[in-house]
């Protein structure tokens, strides 16, 4: 075995001498540094996505009126400060693209997948650290390439973030040529980064769990991130393949989606949504996992029904693969398929209901501490329920005939993505910030930001249900063109103003986030008194995380365990009766 020990020693003597700044912070192979790099990158793109949303909302609230300060925009986008219709379509496309692919997905999978998985399972780092570094440094050029699309001739892609063919396949239809190609290339490159990341996560969770960390002692956040990594691994390549085919339609003149040449426009929708639906579960499952951890911590009580929660995550992941057709009920797809997809879509409401009631069960009989992450987690449950319930309207195919492609759908999207994922992200960033940076974010300003965001979020997106009920179509530049939309302009103005206030209140989070580095209260190892393994090492944890390999004795939710003085029991501390016990 000497050859192996020697090889092992050779590979790691790199740690003994001090790494150069570049190797340590820029091209680092430490999962924690990469996690923070993803965090900074995705917060920038979250801001960009938010800015685009403000322009959209201005045009919908005050159609054809010059944007205050809009003169700064070039003539090709907004002559005299008034948005052009084609630029409006680019805004809608890019708002969706940046928010989904470059903000929420990296924030959930890139940041917390990287940061939490090794720490919470007791591993020193990811299974393939260099591959992990490449995964980040492939995502950055994809983001820059996507940003550059705004400044090319013909404007940025303008066929929606779903880029349905043939609108996206033939440049003449939108007047966009380089923009759509850039969009497709950037998505393909980002896909490569996601696939590399997912391979890393799956191998790490399967192989590098600390002794005693059996599958049913894993925290729910790790279960969620592991199942999400499988979804990423198997869904993203479908999008890469479809994007390449669409790219060839644009460049080599192939006819995949061009009916004149024998192609099928519906083929793009099938491929896109076969990726698309697992994608939306990629965007929500990690949030669900982390919210379960935070609510258990906040309630000082084990998660209610740990096994049903794990089963619900797996059920959502499996069912996620057979529901994609509900995006295409009215698209000319075979109506019999519509009935089949309705049934599978309605079934997927069951695991979501299980999770919701289990979160409530966790709070029941708890001793609730309302720290900022707990506030965000409870609002996640409250808002996600509204998103889930509005999904029931679309699952019923006849009702979907009326509300498909209206603002009812936009309300549903934002209630699950903003009300769901983003609230969970705010909570998770605040929760693991002390572990990442060694200092706490200011709790008072955290609560102010939570309250303002919660109020303005509802003011912005709840009225969209009403717009949808009145048939207000989505992605239209100027609703005043239609008589039946005239009376709704008042609601549009209310939504626009609330959206501006919502955007403004995010500045509190940014300031709190940045000031925390310098002026945040020093956080010890375990500021939230949590049981996870990451709270048993100094904050921020050293390279290699654990001085000695931790041994895990029980599940992560042994709060208020009988026979234990404190109301929490870190996983590496044995139970009073010395027994090892799965999370029940």
């Amino acid at each position, binding site marked *: *075995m000497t050859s*192996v020990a020697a*090889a*092992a020693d050779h*590979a790691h003597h790199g740690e003994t001498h001090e790494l150069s700044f570049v190797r340590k912070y820029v091209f680092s192979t430490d999962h924690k540094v990469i996690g923070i790099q993803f965090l900074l990158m995705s917060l920038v793109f979250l801001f960009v996505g938010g800015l685009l949303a403000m322009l959209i909302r201005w045009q919908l609230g005050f159609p054809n009126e010059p944007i205050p300060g809009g003169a700064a925009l070039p003539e090709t986008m907004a002559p005299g400060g008034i948005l052009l219709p084609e630029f409006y379509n680019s805004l809608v496309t890019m708002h969706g693209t940046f928010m989904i692919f470059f903000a929420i997905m990296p924030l959930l999978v890139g940041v917390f997948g990287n940061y939490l998985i090794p720490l919470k399972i007791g591993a020193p780092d990811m*299974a*393939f*650290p260099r591959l992990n570094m490449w995964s980040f440094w492939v995502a950055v050029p994809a983001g820059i390439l996507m940003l550059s699309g705004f400044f090319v001739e013909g404007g940025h892609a303008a066929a929606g973030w779903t880029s349905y063919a043939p609108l996206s396949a033939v440049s003449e239809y939108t007047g966009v040529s380089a923009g759509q190609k850039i969009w497709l290339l950037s998505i393909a490159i980002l896909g490569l980064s996601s696939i590399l990341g997912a391979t890393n996560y799956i191998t790490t969770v399967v192989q590098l769990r600390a002794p005693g960390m059996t599958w049913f002692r894993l925290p729910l956040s790790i279960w969620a991130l592991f199942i999400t990594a*499988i979804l990423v691994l*198997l869904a993203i390549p*479908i999008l890469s393949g479809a994007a390449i085919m669409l790219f060839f339609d644009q460049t080599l003149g192939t006819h995949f989606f061009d009916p004149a040449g024998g192609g099928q426009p*519906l*083929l793009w929708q*099938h*491929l896109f949504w*076969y990726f698309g639906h697992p994608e939306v579960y990629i965007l929500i499952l990690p949030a669900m996992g982390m919210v379960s951890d935070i609510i258990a911590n906040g309630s000082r009580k084990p998660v209610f029904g740990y096994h049903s929660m794990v089963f619900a995550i797996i059920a959502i992941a499996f069912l996620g*693969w*057979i529901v994609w*057709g509900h995006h295409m009920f009215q698209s000319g*797809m*075979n109506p*019999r*398929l519509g009935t089949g997809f309705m049934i599978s879509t309605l079934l997927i409401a069951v695991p979501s209901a299980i999770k919701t009631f289990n979160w409530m069960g966790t709070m029941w009989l708890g001793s609730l501490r309302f720290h900022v992450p707990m506030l965000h987690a409870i609002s996640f449950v409250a808002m996600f329920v509204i998103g889930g319930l509005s999904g029931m309207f679309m699952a019923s195919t006849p009702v979907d005939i009326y509300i498909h492609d209206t603002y009812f759908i936009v309300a549903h999207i934002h209630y699950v993505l903003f009300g769901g994922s983003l609230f969970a992200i705010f909570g998770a960033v605040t929760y693991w910030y002390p572990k990442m940076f060694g200092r706490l974010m200011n709790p008072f300003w955290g609560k102010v930001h939570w309250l303002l965001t919660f109020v303005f979020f509802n003011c912005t997106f709840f009225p969209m249900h009403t717009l949808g009920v009145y048939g207000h179509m989505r992605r239209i530049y100027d609703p005043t063109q239609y008589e039946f939309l005239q009376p709704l302009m008042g609601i549009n103005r209310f939504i626009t103003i609330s959206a501006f206030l919502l955007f403004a209140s995010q500045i509190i989070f940014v300031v709190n986030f940045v000031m925390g580095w310098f002026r945040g209260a020093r956080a010890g190892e375990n500021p939230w008194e949590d049981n996870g393994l990451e709270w048993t090492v100094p904050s921020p944890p050293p390279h290699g995380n654990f001085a000695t390999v931790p041994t895990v004795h029980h599940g992560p939710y042994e709060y208020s365990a009988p026979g234990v003085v404190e109301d929490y029991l870190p996983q590496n501390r044995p139970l009073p009766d010395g027994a090892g016990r799965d999370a029940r």
Partner: protein
Amino acid sequence: MTDMQASQAAHEEHFAHPNYWVVWAALAALTLVELGVAFLPWPRAVVVLILVVMAVWKAVLVALYFMHLRFEANRMRIFALAPLPLAVIIVIAVMTEFIW
């Protein structure tokens, strides 16, 4: 990132290597038979079915003997087979658009 596991893996790797030349001959023979079947005057649907079955058979041979799935623990087989049902779902579902 070598580790103790490498030695553990080396231990297990000494499973019986099958006679690869036999598998090679089988693959070559199947390819020749396929070439023959492709030009038979039978109805197209039958020819296509036979060809697809032979292709899958060759693919399984490669997976079992060359990729050693035959000698792996069931856990590894799950990783290998997991994506296949997903591949079949999309193709079958979209094909029903044109048949049903």
